[in-house]
């Protein structure tokens, strides 16, 4: 039964070690250049499953309206996470301490961010604590800041929230806005060692039903599975696009450009890896696109015209293997394909755009839906 891919085994089923590998690969694609390297997250999730058993995955509609759901994620610097990972007890305490503050244990765990390493942490948490994991998240991709989630867009309070490190030092955060929580947690995380667990956005089942982006764990698994099978058949990019077109939200997708990285500028600005890269066509050297990023890829421009923009997803993948490439791994000369994918409708509303649209990243340009920009070519 378990060799049938996860996305075909829904709605209620378990996450196996094999599934983790697919989800991690899909999460790397959804990371849009950021989100941290899922590799160690994958190993930690696999280790948790082997030690504690497979966690159950449930759909948003399986929850009672008054169920209690906590989210959990890792916060810190990816470089530090690569050295320190997690201890395990820190995950347990982040949930247990928040439960103490709220007054009850959660009925389920939900991801905050499906892109990158934070697709893996909730799996490890669910396995360790024996709690079901909800197939959803609050970003549908990766974003750099804690307030950039659909939960916050619709007024769910980010706090009370709990930050825990490997020494089991704990900070309980209570603020009036998610942005303030983000600012405080970043400072606290530095003192706590920059590789900490964060449990936040305690929610009701009704709030998850109304405000989450549904089925993103399954989509991550589906992307990973499509890439894996596509590589075996020699065409992972088309396999990926075909899969995305079969999903509810990510179905508008295309290869925006195919070429080599011919310019790359990156700097550390306010703690984020900021800059741009240029991808030039191999056959027609006078054709290129420029991608601007701040940890995640945010805008693609061609001849002064925007051809994809946040919150729509922009991923840079290796031309042949379709392996997603993080902003920190971009290198001059890499042969890549730039893939644009539509974001879920709940992420494109005016309220959502105010929190994580172009303006939130300092861009003057307005958001335009990927499928509208490219309507003549889809």
């Amino acid at each position: 039964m378990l060799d049938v891919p996860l996305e075909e085994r829904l709605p209620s089923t378990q996450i196996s070690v094999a599934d983790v590998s697919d989800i991690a690969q899909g999460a790397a694609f959804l990371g849009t250049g950021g989100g941290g390297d899922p590799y160690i997250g994958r190993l930690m999730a696999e280790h948790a499953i082997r030690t504690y058993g497979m966690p159950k995955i449930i759909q948003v509609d399986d929850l009672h309206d008054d169920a209690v759901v906590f989210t959990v994620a890792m916060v810190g610097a990816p470089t530090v996470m690569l050295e320190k990972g997690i201890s395990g007890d820190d995950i347990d305490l982040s949930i247990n301490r928040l439960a103490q503050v709220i007054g009850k244990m959660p009925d389920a765990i939900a991801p905050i961010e499906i892109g990158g390493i934070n697709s893996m942490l909730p799996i490890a948490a669910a396995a360790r604590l024996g709690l079901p994991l909800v197939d959803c998240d609050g970003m549908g991709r990766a974003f750099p800041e804690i307030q950039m989630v659909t939960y916050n867009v619709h007024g769910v309070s980010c706090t009370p929230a709990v930050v825990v490190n490997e020494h089991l030092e704990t900070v309980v955060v209570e603020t009036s806005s998610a942005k303030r929580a983000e600012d405080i947690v970043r400072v606290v995380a530095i003192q706590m060692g920059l590789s900490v667990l964060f449990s936040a956005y305690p929610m009701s089942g009704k709030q998850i039903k109304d405000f989450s982006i549904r089925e993103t764990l399954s989509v991550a698994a589906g992307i990973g599975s499509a890439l894996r099978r596509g590589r075996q058949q020699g065409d992972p990019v088309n396999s990926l696009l075909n899969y995305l077109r079969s999903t509810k939200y990510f179905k508008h997708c295309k290869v925006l450009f195919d070429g080599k990285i011919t310019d790359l500028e990156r700097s550390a600005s306010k703690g984020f890896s900021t800059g741009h890269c240029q991808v030039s066509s191999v056959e027609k050297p006078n054709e290129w696109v420029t991608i601007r990023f701040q940890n995640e890829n945010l805008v693609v421009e061609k001849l002064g015209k925007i051809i994809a923009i946040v919150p729509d997803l922009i991923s840079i993948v290796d031309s042949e293997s379709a392996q997603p490439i993080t902003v920190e791994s971009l290198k001059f000369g890499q042969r890549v394909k730039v893939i644009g994918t539509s974001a879920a409708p709940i992420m494109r509303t005016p309220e959502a755009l105010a929190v994580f649209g172009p303006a939130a990243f300092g861009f003057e340009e307005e958001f335009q839906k990927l499928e509208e920009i490219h309507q003549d070519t889809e």
Partner: protein
Amino acid sequence: MRIGIDVGGTNTDAVLMDGRMVVSSHKTPTTANISDGVITAISRILDRAAVSAEELDAVMIGTTQFTNAFVERRNLLPVGVIRLALPATAGLPPMIDWPADIAKVIGTHCYMVRGGYEFDGRVISPLDELAIKRAAVELRNLGVKAVAICGVFSPINPDMEERAAAIIQQEIPGVAVTLSSRIGRISLLERENAAIMNASLTDLSRKVVTSFRHALTQLNIKAPFHISQNDGTLMTADFVEKYPVLTFASGPTNSMRGAAYLSGVKDALVVDIGGTTTDIGMLIKGFPRESTMAVDIGGVRTNFRMPDVISLGLGGGSVVNPTDATNIGPLSVGFRLTEKALVFGGDTLTTTDIAVAAGYADVGDKQRVAHLSSDVINSAVQRIHALIADGVDRMKTSVEPVPLIMVGGGSILVNQDIPGTSDLIVPENASVANAIGASIAQVGGVVDKVYSYERMGRKQSIEDAKHQAIAVAVEAGAVKETVEVIELEEIPLSYMPGNAVRLRVKTAGELSLC
């Protein structure tokens, strides 16, 4: 005068160099005890050149013995692994992602103890010396003779690893200890894996270095000898005995550096066509462009810097489908070319046969391929060139035409211009490019550190890193005036305070021979 030797899995190649000139060269099968093959190769080149051992200034050796041993799971020792990290990293135990077969050889003697550093040098926990002592006693009772020690953020502060080593050495007489801080970079698992791999090669490294020393003694060679490491620079024999893992990529690196040297071109593509595969790499300032991907050696993930080389399933022995001549390789007759190929009286149509039939190679008996139709010949020739052209295109970083240096015995397969290239250079002595690369190797220094641009400023940070890298090269034996910066990499680190940037500076200079 210097000697360059490459001890490969199949062949031992040697060259005698007088300045820039190749005086003599020889290729002989690698022997099981290594020293016999080395003695044969060196004796031949000295005899042919009528040069005596006293006239030699230096001997440089490149070898893939260690990579091969690890990949083939042979001559490896079980290793005790001690990680200084708790309470951090507990969710990510050592060897967590190792393939079962190699894990069985190495054993699962892993210990995690309190210790390690934070990103800014603070201590995670004070080092648990008692736990290390207890681990050492257990390892001693198990008869484990090689230990790998890995501490969190040890590349920024090796003190705890060194203290742990002292305790281990006190408890286990004759133990070989590898400190991860000496061989690896940031990223715990990859660095720990490299340390474990290194420790497992302890016995083999002693045997191999001893056999090199023995060979040179037998030949009465008193000149100093050095061994090439991953990036083509040199290490002393003593250093290699302790850090064999640093030789892993030296083979392909030396081949490419030899190609650069022979052609006199520093920025070019290098196409090395062998019997079964064609390796294509890119030379920048005389050194191979390095790969950015995590490197998997024998199924174990590491972050060694390796040359960025793509491998095509095309070589001189590649089998050509007679009914569809565009179907070439990856199957190859390999070293059995001289019995299997048509021109040598065999029954298999190979690319070498095509080259002879097309008239641009003259080996074997060309009458034996006179029956091939011009369709078959042309299709195969087009396909061969298309495969190489595609590989070349994948390696180029811009659309500008780039010189192409061709080395390897299979270079007879190419007879037309490859699109995107400006010149085709087939240097003499290309078949021993790897030994030549070893002989011209320089002494290098690498500094890989995190700087805070907020605290130190960009300019000063870069100057500091360069200064340190030059000092490392000089300490390793380089002539100070010849040391140059050959690579500078700046990677901003996200989410870290103080505008943190990782600077990696690589320098190289001529080996001081006095």
